[in-house]
């Protein structure tokens, strides 16, 4: 069995509201193996970004981790001192964020921003770091890499900026790269370029990748395994082929059915999921998806389902649903 790189257990995150703390992420379990690409899929507000940001304490104000552990290479990330945390950030875990326009400092040159992690983690001299920065830009496919070091972010196109962000995330050859919707702000042809770039880099550098997205189609060709999040919980976790071939949670199933397909039949209607996800602080008792679930039973409204292996103990396909077996039969 492959080696665990990151193991998150029972992670909960809450936000301070007027009416007191409200849970946004509710006891998430997930793991990333060495060299694996994990796709985290969910709709806005499901807590997918917060979960990953919380690991290195980058949560916005008023949002905090209320429970859980996150073992990373044998240490609990959530218990690190701020000094140890700094070593992990950028050193062991690299980040790529959604909007490269706002995620790069507009008043600093690309080169300055790129050498920072090298200066602080690798203790390189400025000249060495600059040389390495040039190599990194070439690695992410920026033409005229060395000259580009003296550019400001606004002088680059959106795709180029995102390549720079990736170079920053990769600067110290991290063991884990967390990409938070890195292509959402980009056009589809540029998205294809970035996806290919990350796939290629992963193969060459052998790191693990967590790719956060709301786009199931995008992640299909990219991930080894997918975690589907709904309202702050993992509802399904499966190797990518299995998830698409045999979705066991009604939410995953509904999500897949609601995407129009490029190769499918000309269906008259899309299968949509009625209703809207619960707001934080208004989570229903029992399964959070129960109010929108076409197959909900009495037990779904009262008891929270646990994330369990589908059909026995050995399968890596896990689902949190009381009626998963019936869902599979109905298919």
């Amino acid at each position, binding site marked *: 069995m492959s080696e665990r790189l990151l193991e998150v257990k029972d992670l909960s995150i809450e936000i301070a509201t007027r009416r007191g703390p409200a849970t946004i992420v509710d006891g998430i379990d997930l793991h990333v193996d060495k060299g694996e690409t994990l796709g985290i899929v969910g709709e806005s507000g499901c807590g997918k970004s917060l979960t990953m940001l919380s690991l*290195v304490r*980058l949560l*916005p*104000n008023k949002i905090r981790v209320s429970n859980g552990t996150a073992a990373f290479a044998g240490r609990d990330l959530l218990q690190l001192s*701020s000094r140890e*945390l*700094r*070593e*992990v*950030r*950028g*050193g062991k875990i*690299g*980040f790529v*964020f959604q*909007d490269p326009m*706002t*995620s*790069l*400092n*507009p*008043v*600093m*040159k690309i080169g300055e*921003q790129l050498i*920072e*992690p090298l200066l*602080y*983690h690798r203790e390189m001299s400025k000249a060495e770091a600059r040389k390495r920065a040039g190599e990194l830009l070439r690695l992410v496919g920026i033409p005229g890499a060395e000259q580009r070091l003296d550019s*400001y972010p*606004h*002088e680059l196109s959106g795709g180029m900026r995102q390549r720079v*962000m990736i170079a*920053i995330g990769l*600067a110290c050859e991290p063991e884990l790269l967390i990409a938070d919707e890195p292509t959402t702000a980009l056009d589809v042809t540029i998205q294809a370029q970035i996806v290919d770039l990350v796939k290629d880099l992963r193969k060459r550098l052998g790191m693990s990748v967590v790719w956060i997205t709301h786009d199931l189609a995008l992640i299909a060709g990219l991930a080894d395994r997918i975690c589907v999040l709904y309202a702050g919980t993992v509802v399904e976790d499966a190797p990518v082929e299995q998830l698409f071939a045999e979705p066991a949670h009604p939410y995953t199933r509904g999500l897949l059915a609601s995407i129009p397909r490029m190769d499918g039949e000309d269906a008259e209607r899309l299968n949509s999921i009625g209703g809207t996800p619960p707001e934080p602080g208004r989570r229903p008792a029992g399964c959070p998806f129960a109010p929108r679930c076409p197959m909900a039973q009495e037990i779904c409204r009262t008891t929270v389902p646990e994330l369990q292996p589908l059909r026995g103990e050995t399968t890596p396909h896990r689902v949190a649903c009381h009626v998963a077996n019936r869902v599979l039969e109905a298919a």
Partner: protein
Amino acid sequence: MLLFVLKRLGIWIPTVIVVILGVYALAFYGAGDPIKLIFMRAPGDVAYDPVRIEAIREQAGLNQPFIQQFGNYLWNALHGNFGNSLVNGRSVWSMIAAAAPVSFQLGLLAIVLTAVVAIPLGMVAGMKQNSKTDYVILGTALLVWAIPAYVAGPLLMVLLITILPGSAVPYGWGGIFDAKIILPLLVLSFQPIALIVRQTRAAVIEVLSEDFVRTARSKGLPETVVALRHILRPVLTPIVTQLGLIMISIINGAIFVELVFGLPGLGRLTVGALTSSDYPIVLAITVIGSFLVMASNLLVDVLYPILDPRAADAMRSR
């Protein structure tokens, strides 16, 4: 760059002229006949002789139409001649030349003090938003903001005397290296400091929510590096644009501070001239004050692209 400065100057010079025109017109139509003013002031000195008055008037060019007189004034002002005081007959320029160094040195020091004190305080308050430190800094700034300079001055003066019995009363001018400058400098800087602390704090809070700060932290940079490299620079841009406002605030404050601490600067000259309706002086000082504010605005306009590469880029690519 040069073209841009020239363009700015092209807007700036007419504005200065219009301001002078406005103030001059106020004095011209409002204050009344300057000759009569002189005679009213000292009725016994010179016999009130209409023929003589007309002669003086003609000699001084005061019978010319307004616009011509204004033109003369402007022309003379350009050569540093702002006329003579109505009270003692000395040239206004020489009086201003004597007073200006005091005000300028004090004002410059106040700006430096403001920048050195207020920007770090505002940074700290903003970085630790809603903490005790923040509340103390912000609360103090608001309190200081609420106390007018003319109240703060005397209060501090007495406080000093009570705390350090035997210390000299900080009254009068002894140059910028004289200990007497401390209190007036403090009082003069209070309001600008309060202003800049609040603005820096607000700007820091805004920048803190920017994505690029998160990126900087995700690189594992120490918090001081994040603050100094990533937050300070974007914050400085709006703060520098406030220089013009600080200038106004300092000119306003100087009037009170010089009065209270007995400094022989432009502020005291103004108040003195005002109480004795000495128009040429008030006029000249207003012109110089506006000139200063507009000059600092111009400076800010030119500085802006240097601080913000996005603007600089636009200028280079011309």
